[in-house]
């Protein structure tokens, strides 16, 4: 059973759009035709939730005539049902009640993207009760859809909770803030599992936000499983369940910080980092593009390094020209005017083939044009910022463990935006356990020369310094107390960073994340992961039953604090490498590019009072 998150989310949404009526595959009979044309009203987060999954044309196929925003002034369409898909906030609920009282639409089908809390539901009920009786009768249905996550691809999702990393690591953060953030993350994960319909086994490292999220999620799942029937009863019976249950691996961004900032040379991370790919949509100064599963070139080439991509585009263009010439030759050429009798039927057939293949050819041309433009834009940026130099240098540092000081310093003094230089410096910091202080001085001097804001650099330096301080204390098991929260964080990141660094140095370019996930999925005793906590919502609280540690066929990897296409790629490679093939889904609180992550680090540095000379980096605008 391959977990296909996107398809399941699509199913839920389509069923919601068809007002939960039974429908046959072709929709030929049995579909309530009175409700064939409906309106869809959403708020902004739900619009971004829906856009990677359904396009406007697809919406029309399901009978939606108009998509409206909930906050815009709307007018009455008296004979159409309205489907609302909103987040359960009080303001949304007030709007819905106002619409119902005004009688804007014939019937209201209210769907909340996550579970609606009791007070909000009562608020809606009170507003409806206060209005004339017909108003409440119009509300035909209220449902919790549990789809509050953005599914960018089949195996990649994001919770669209920006700045989670900043909020979690903020030294001045209040406990209440952190708890609410942890709750929000747990709720998002609960939505993911509700859509998938499985109850996972949760594994996470000790201490840190991962453990908190795991505990909250475990509690929520347990509570939910107590009620029968619940969302998970369709899953297989308990006996078979262990074989098919996936494992949820929770990680914190501090586990492997370097992946968040490094430059990468493959196509998709480059597009995301340099050109700003959001929700599978790319906006160039000239025009907009959409990059998703329907684009074959994108799928086959997203993980190839950039030069290879350029070659591929050339090859495709040549092939296209060849095809076009062939078509022209067969139909145009000389056979048009003189009726060579024997060729006539052949001509007709060729004409018909040509006419049929024309749309396909135009599609191919459009795709080739699109990627040519994207590649050209990328090339412009790469030349301007000499990103190839950065990539090579970082690769050397992270994989080979060597650094050519001259190249490093020349890069820091040379071309590239401030974020690029910061990223290089941070990667340099993180690649080596101990750095000779003279080197550090040189690097810092170079950075200051380029007028780069030093807060991020200082912040990472401090984390490293604190890690070495806590070197002795990492072994002892301490209880996770929110008051000792900061110490837990640093203590955990120490072991994680050194472990990550060791792995990186010894094993080539395999991310620590991938290795850990592989170890967790295999379930064999492994010193790296043995002290990972295990939560099993289906097991009884006393924990008497044997804890199920693996092997698992499927895994869901979640990164708290910001994920990355580089990690996604390495997980895909893991999936393809293992025999029999395992299935991995990757998710994060948000998908960050390196520049955005550096902004967040800088912000944290400033909050911690480590700000350098100038504070002209704007606060992180992450997505």
């Amino acid at each position, binding site marked *: 059973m391959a977990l296909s998150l996107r398809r399941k989310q699509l199913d839920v949404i389509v069923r919601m759009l068809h007002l939960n009526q039974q429908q046959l595959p072709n929709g030929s009979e049995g579909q309530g035709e009175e409700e064939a044309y409906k309106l869809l009203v959403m708020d902004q987060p739900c619009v971004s939730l829906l856009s990677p999954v359904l396009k406007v044309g697809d919406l029309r196929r399901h009978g939606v005539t108009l998509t409206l925003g909930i906050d815009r002034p709307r007018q009455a369409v008296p004979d159409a049902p309205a489907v609302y898909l909103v987040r359960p906030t009080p303001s949304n609920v007030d709007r819905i009640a106002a619409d119902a009282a005004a009688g804007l639409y014939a019937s209201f089908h209210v769907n909340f993207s996550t579970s609606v809390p009791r007070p909000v*539901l009562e608020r809606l009920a009170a507003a409806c009760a206060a209005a004339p009786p017909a108003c409440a009768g119009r509300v035909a249905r209220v449902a919790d859809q549990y789809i509050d996550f953005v599914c960018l691809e089949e195996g990649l999702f994001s919770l669209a909770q920006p700045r989670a990393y900043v909020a979690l690591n903020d030294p001045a953060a209040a406990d209440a803030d952190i708890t609410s953030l942890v709750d929000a993350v747990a709720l998002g994960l609960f939505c993911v599992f509700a859509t998938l319909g499985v109850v996972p086994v949760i594994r996470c490292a000790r201490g840190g936000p991962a453990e908190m999220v795991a505990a909250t999620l475990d509690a929520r799942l347990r509570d939910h499983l107590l009620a029968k029937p619940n969302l998970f009863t369709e899953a297989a019976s308990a006996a078979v369940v262990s074989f098919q249950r996936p494992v949820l691996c929770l990680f914190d961004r501090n586990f492997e910080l370097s992946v968040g900032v490094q430059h990468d040379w493959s196509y998709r991370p480059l597009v995301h980092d340099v050109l700003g790919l959001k929700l599978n949509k790319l906006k160039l100064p000239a025009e907009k593009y959409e990059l998703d599963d329907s684009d074959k070139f994108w799928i086959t080439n997203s993980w190839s390094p950039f030069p290879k991509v350029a070659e591929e585009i050339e090859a495709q263009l040549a092939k296209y020209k060849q095809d076009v010439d062939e078509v022209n030759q067969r139909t145009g050429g000389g056979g048009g005017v003189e009726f060579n009798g024997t060729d006539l039927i052949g001509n007709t057939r060729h004409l018909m083939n040509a006419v049929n293949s024309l749309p396909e050819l135009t599609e191919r041309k459009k795709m080739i044009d699109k990627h040519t433009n994207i590649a050209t834009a990328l090339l412009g940026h790469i030349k301007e910022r000499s990103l190839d130099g950065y990539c090579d240098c970082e690769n050397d540092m992270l994989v080979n463990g060597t650094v050519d000081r001259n190249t490093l310093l020349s890069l820091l003094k040379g071309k590239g935006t401030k974020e690029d230089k910061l990223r290089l410096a941070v990667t340099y910091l993180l690649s080596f356990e101990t750095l000779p202080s003279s080197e550090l001085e040189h690097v810092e001097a170079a950075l200051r020369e380029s007028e780069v804001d030093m807060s991020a650099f200082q912040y990472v330096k401090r984390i490293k310094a604190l890690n070495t301080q806590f070197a002795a204390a990492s072994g002892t098991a301490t209880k996770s107390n929110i008051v000792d929260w900061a110490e837990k964080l640093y203590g955990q990141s120490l072991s994680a960073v050194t472990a990550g660094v060791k792995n990186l140095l010894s094993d080539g370019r395999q991310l620590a994340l991938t290795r850990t996930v592989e170890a967790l999925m295999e379930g064999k005793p492994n010193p790296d992961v043995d002290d990972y906590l295990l939560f099993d919502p289906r097991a009884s609280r006393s924990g008497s039953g044997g804890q199920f540690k693996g092997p698992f066929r499927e895994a869901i990897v979640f990164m708290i604090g910001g994920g990355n296409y580089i990690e996604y790629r390495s997980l895909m490679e893991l999936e393809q490498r293992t025999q029999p093939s395992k299935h991995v889904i990757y998710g994060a609180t948000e998908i960050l590019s390196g520049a955005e992550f550096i902004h967040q680090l800088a912000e944290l540095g400033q909050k911690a009072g480590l700000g350098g000379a100038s504070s002209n980096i704007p606060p992180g605008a992450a997505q």
Partner: protein
Amino acid sequence: MSRVRDRTEDFKEAVRVAALSHGYTEVSSTPAPPHPFSSAYGRKLNDPQFIALRCVAMQAQLAALMSSFIIRKLTPKSPFTNAAIKTLESIRELERFIVKHRRDYVDLHRTTEQERDNIEHEVGVFVKACKEQIDILKNRIHDEEKNGNAKTWLGTRDESSRLDLIAHQHGVVLILCERLHSVTAQFDRLRSMRFQDAINRAMPRKKIQKKPEIKPAEPSKSNLVLKSDVSKIGDQEVSTAPMRVQEQLLDDETRALQVELTSLLDAVQETETKMMEMSALNHLMSTHVLQQAQQIQYLYDQWDCGLCVSPVTSSALSQAVEATNNVERGNKELSQAIQRNSSSRTFLLLFFFVLTFSVLFLDWYSK
């Protein structure tokens, strides 16, 4: 397969509770109303009988509220929506028809050509009827909008209250168009399969044509080779006679084949022209519908981006609508002008005719 938690029951329960508490708070807040006869009235309001009356009234309201959940009042649909639903039903009907006869149509040996033509004809008629219905709906939107424009002297206020409704109706028509287009595309695929079969049936004849072509070429080549061989060998007297007979035979063969070729050529040209016609019709049906869909989509997109950007974009849409109206009117005027032109010509001819005869008559009369 419900991954969804239905909270409707919770909601109804909450509404009931809220209604009760609402009534309760109303009852308890009556002690001091600002009323002219407050002194006398106030005593009356605190009267337990009055409170009981209010309780009864509250209960009646509550009952009405809960019953509105159960008995959902079916609001009558506008005639537009009814027409749209009927059109959708007829498109579904068409789809079912095509699916039912799909095998008959495609399979070579189940039906005759005549029956296939029948099926095509019926489908064509159906498609035309659906298209007409869609056109009627589209015109109705324009008319309603024009009427709206004409009646309101208050201007924008009334228009904006109908913006969403008009956009919704455009969306409905667009959905219908797209459905029709997909169904006709389905049918066109079946048609192209039929054409392929027809071509394939003509193709074997072509192959036979090709072979006799090659054969006359080869015998002539072999002739030359033979002649050169013979000349090389130098045994001309003995071999010329049988060679000449061979030549004769080959010539006859070639002539016969050429005659056959030309006759086949004529037949092929005929089938080819017929097929070109059919393929033209083929594309006409689906492209016509697609064109219409594109037209509507254009108008609809104007609505859509207009709605997204700012609430008052009726001017842009009405301009587009007016443009189409103008074009239509222009067409009408042109056709009327042509009619008038032709009618005036006949009148003129008649006039001259009559004049000629009257002159002749007068001439004869004066004699």
